[in-house]
């Protein structure tokens, strides 16, 4: 009954379609290596030689390594603390959903998914500047808090499927509730931790609006923010701009090429719950 022959028509159509995705990236890569004269001759042609002048200049103009460091710092801290705190909150909620107070708390957190950021943006900036949190630390804290809505939703669904018997046995053996969470539940959450970690990392790394309104110091700027400032000031030299964009996109692309199977399955798991 099963036929194992590959469907070549669909394969071919999909390969043709993937040009739409790869073309803008191709354009970016080849033009990042070219001089304006070379681009003027042909936008699509390969560069005549691999020269890195554009990259060196872009690194200086955007203070690239500083911005990269900021993005890295913000993303790593956000992911680590999101995993540690959000899973714990979700665990407490998932195991007490039969109680009214926890049920209300669950819906309170989850309903925040539908609050558009602009409604909190204006007062939030006032509040953060009053508290002296217009810096990466403040930004990390906001990511951890704002991720809670969606992450609690994901974690609670997953934790409900973990049998309680395991925990009861540990409690009988003298383990505390905290011990149960850290030693038994947290390790069991590994697949969901991967999903939440990937989604959080993508968000924190690529986000633009929140850093735009929260980070006040130029030296704190993240990669997208630096591109924005750079673009509005030096928009005439496209080759330089492309070198800069490519460097900003490259860290994520490298991570993706290495870990794509894992990333896709992580996102898919988040979707099914």
């Amino acid at each position: 009954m099963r036929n194992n022959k590959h469907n070549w028509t669909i394969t071919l159509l999909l390969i043709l379609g993937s040009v739409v995705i790869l073309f803008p990236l191709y354009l970016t890569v080849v033009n990042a290596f070219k001089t304006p004269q070379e681009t003027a001759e042909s936008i699509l042609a390969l560069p005549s030689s691999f020269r890195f002048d554009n990259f060196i200049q872009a690194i200086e103009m955007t203070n690239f390594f500083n911005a990269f460091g900021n993005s890295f710092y913000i993303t790593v801290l956000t992911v680590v603390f999101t995993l540690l705190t959000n899973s714990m909150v979700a665990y407490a909620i998932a195991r007490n959903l039969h109680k009214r107070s926890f049920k209300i708390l669950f819906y309170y957190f989850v309903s925040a998914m539908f609050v558009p950021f602009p409604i909190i943006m204006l007062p939030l900036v006032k509040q953060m500047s009053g508290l002296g949190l217009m810096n990466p630390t403040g930004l990390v804290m906001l990511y951890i808090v704002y991720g809670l809505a969606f992450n609690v939703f994901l974690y609670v669904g997953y934790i409900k499927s973990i049998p309680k018997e395991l925990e009861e046995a540990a409690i009988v053996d003298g383990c505390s509730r905290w011990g149960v969470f850290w030693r038994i539940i947290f390790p069991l959450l590994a697949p969901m931790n991967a999903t939440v970690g990937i989604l959080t990392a993508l968000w924190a790394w690529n986000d633009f609006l929140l850093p735009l309104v929260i980070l006040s110091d130029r030296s704190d700027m993240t990669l997208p923010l630096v591109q924005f400032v750079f673009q509005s000031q030096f928009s005439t030299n496209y080759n330089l701009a492309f070198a800069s964009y490519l460097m900003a996109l490259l860290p994520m692309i490298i991570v993706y090429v290495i870990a794509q199977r894992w990333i896709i399955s992580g996102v898919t798991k988040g979707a099914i719950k």
Partner: protein
Amino acid sequence: MSKKINPYVLMVLPAFIIFFSFHTYPMLQGVFYSFTNWRGYGDWDFVGFSNYISVFQDGRARDAYFFTFQFAIISTILVNIISLIIALGLNAKIKFMKTLRAVYFMPNILSILIVGFIFNYIFAIFVPLIAESLGLTTLATNILGNPDLAWIGIVIVAVWQAAAFNTILYLAGLATISQDLYEASSLDGANKWQEFWKITFPLIAPFFTINMVLAMKNFLMVFDHIMALTGGGPGRATESISLLIYRGGFQGGEFAYQSANAVIYFIIIVTISVIQIRYLQKREVDM
């Protein structure tokens, strides 16, 4: 035992306090300020609903709402059609399946702002150049510089980026369908078209609901695309609601006024999401 605080409470209490302080409290403040005439600094008075009435009479706000809705509806429909087609393709018996899936998902990992800058170049330089050499005069100018066409450019970039995530959701949905159903239907002589409408589509209906709601919600909040492509221009032709709130609130001294706008925006998003969920879920049950 009775004197100890319940560990569950300790697990959620800090999160609740911080969440309230940095999410709910600013939101309530926003609602509060929407009834005042505060400019973001200095003195203020209560003005009742006058900000709300002004928003409804404000041509700039009306244009922003009109643009945002037009953009969100068209993009939502396009993204769902395109990503469903791609997902069906990627779910078929194809060669290079893993590589193709990886390629089609890639836009989702890239910063929209930077992708927008790249497309900005494509629209401004590349497309006109190609069009000119082919003698297509209509495309020989930058569409982003044309008030009537700029929104199309934003739709293209938004769809290019968002289709990746929606494709993954549809693929997840397609993976839940048992192969036996297709074997049974092919024995009954169903063609591919009937197969799709009678089996595939009804069975992935919950994923259709999620995709429609998420896509619509995300597109209604569009911001990065516009900053990268047009900055709201030309004129104010592509000014979205979030861009208007950002600009007016931070740069235009309209703190209270834009807070009122934000409250209206919030109510609209929640209403649309609830209606979508209700309506689409009813369809799921019917089928």
